């Protein structure tokens, strides 16, 4: 049992992951992620980084092993419980996954609408976040009217809007210019340091300018390896 400040948010025990009727991509992964931890998972293309992330939000079911996210075991989880669990997770995708028929404001508002907040609260929170990502002036626009960097900033604002317990980011800066990449990393760092949000980022490379402690897992031949626990080494 961890003390409260070291509460385990994600626990994986001998987890193997594969797509239907194929060989496992990830073997026997065992790890724990504590509340407020910032985790990088790195590895070459096709190594299974995104697959791990998908398993964490219930898009892929482990072939073996047990996954527990915020005290909810995923084995035999019902559809309703899965949806409730996802309401505590913020996800950022490389391809943004914004709803193209909705304007920016409504896209950012989505997690708040799902959580059942009043319109007034939703609008106030969205205005604040859009100002924070420097897109307040474009809140009436639709995703296709924005650049890639702007769309990812919108996706980031959406992931933060409901103050989730965990943020999962799949190559969040993969396609972005340096300005937008900087904004995304600053937002993730801010959520981690100020709100104690647990962050798990899947990426090719850890940005050199990270100003906080993080845990680094890499994937080598389908195995998750804890590269270096950098607690206590602030850069």
């Amino acid at each position, binding site marked *: 049992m961890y003390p409260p400040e070291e509460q385990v948010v994600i626990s994986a025990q001998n987890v193997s992951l594969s797509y239907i009727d194929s060989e496992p991509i990830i073997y026997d992964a065992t790890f724990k992620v504590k509340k407020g931890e910032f985790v990088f998972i790195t590895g070459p293309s096709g190594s299974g980084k995104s697959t791990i992330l998908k398993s964490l939000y219930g*898009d892929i079911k482990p072939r073996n092993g047990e996954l527990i996210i915020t005290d909810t075991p995923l084995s035999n989880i019902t559809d309703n419980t899965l949806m409730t669990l996802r309401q505590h997770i913020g996800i950022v995708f490389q391809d943004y996954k914004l709803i193209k*028929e909705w304007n920016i404001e409504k896209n950012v508002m989505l997690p708040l609408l799902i959580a059942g907040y009043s319109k007034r609260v939703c609008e106030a929170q969205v205005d604040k976040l859009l100002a924070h990502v420097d897109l307040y002036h474009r809140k009436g626009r639709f995703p296709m009217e924005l650049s890639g960097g702007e769309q990812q900033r919108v996706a980031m604002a959406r992931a933060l809007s409901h103050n989730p317990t965990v943020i999962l980011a799949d190559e969040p800066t993969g396609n972005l210019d340096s300005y937008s990449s900087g904004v995304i990393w600053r937002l993730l760092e801010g959520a981690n340091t100020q709100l104690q949000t647990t962050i798990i980022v899947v990426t090719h490379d850890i940005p050199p300018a990270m100003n906080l402690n993080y845990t680094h897992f890499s994937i080598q031949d389908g195995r998750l390896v804890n590269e270096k626990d950098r607690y206590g080494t602030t850069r």
Partner: protein
Amino acid sequence: MNMPFREHISLITALFTILFTLQVYFVIDRTIIMYETTLTNSYSMITVSNKPIQIDLVKDEIKAIDKIKTIDPQKVVDRLKDELNKEDLGVLKESLPNFYRVFLKKYPDPDGLKNIKNRIENFDGIIRVETYSKTHNQIFKLLVLFKEISNVFLIAIFLVSTLLVVKEMRIWQFEHTERMHIMALFGAPIWMRSAVLFKVAIFDAIISSILVVITFLILDMNGWLHELFSMIAVEVDIFEFFKDTFKLLSISIIISFMLASVTILKNRESYGR
């Protein structure tokens, strides 16, 4: 709603096509029923009897008979009053048999007509029953043809509607799957993911119904179609406002709800999908 209007166009177009053809079918069906009623009302057979028949008895025996009217022989006599003297006319009037016009409840088929004729002939005193069967059979065949065409049209509507709905299902899968999946990624319960679809379904159903109602009201106000119907001596309501609006709206809502339900069922999110 927030969906750009072009996202609505495909369903509205499909629903409009289905509703328009259905309303055309309703008008054709109504026309055939009207035409049949007109034929029934104008058709009668002549029965000649050498003694007065008991009208109520005949009607009780042959349920297909609607009414029997006695033909006044004075009309026949009046035509001959210039050629015959008063005494001969009196003798003629006394010796004339009784004439009756027999009206039926429904326009019968040739076998039915033959059967009715035979049964009337079995009554005591009946010496002749004239059914004008040749003319009747020709008109009856025409009526059957209309009905068959109408049925073929209904089958065609059903096939076209099925094809349009199947095509629309594919479009909806493409258009709505991504949004529903993204909503599910953030934990939207099924009712919330579905609500958007049902809103679109109701909106499109209402718009397409309104468009068909407007189209048929314009056609109804235009004299051209009524002139066409008057050529076959039939007065048809091209659009019965409350009844037809209710029917069209119900059908379009049923179709679009069916579409929404199939899309939702195909996009159920569960663990490991």
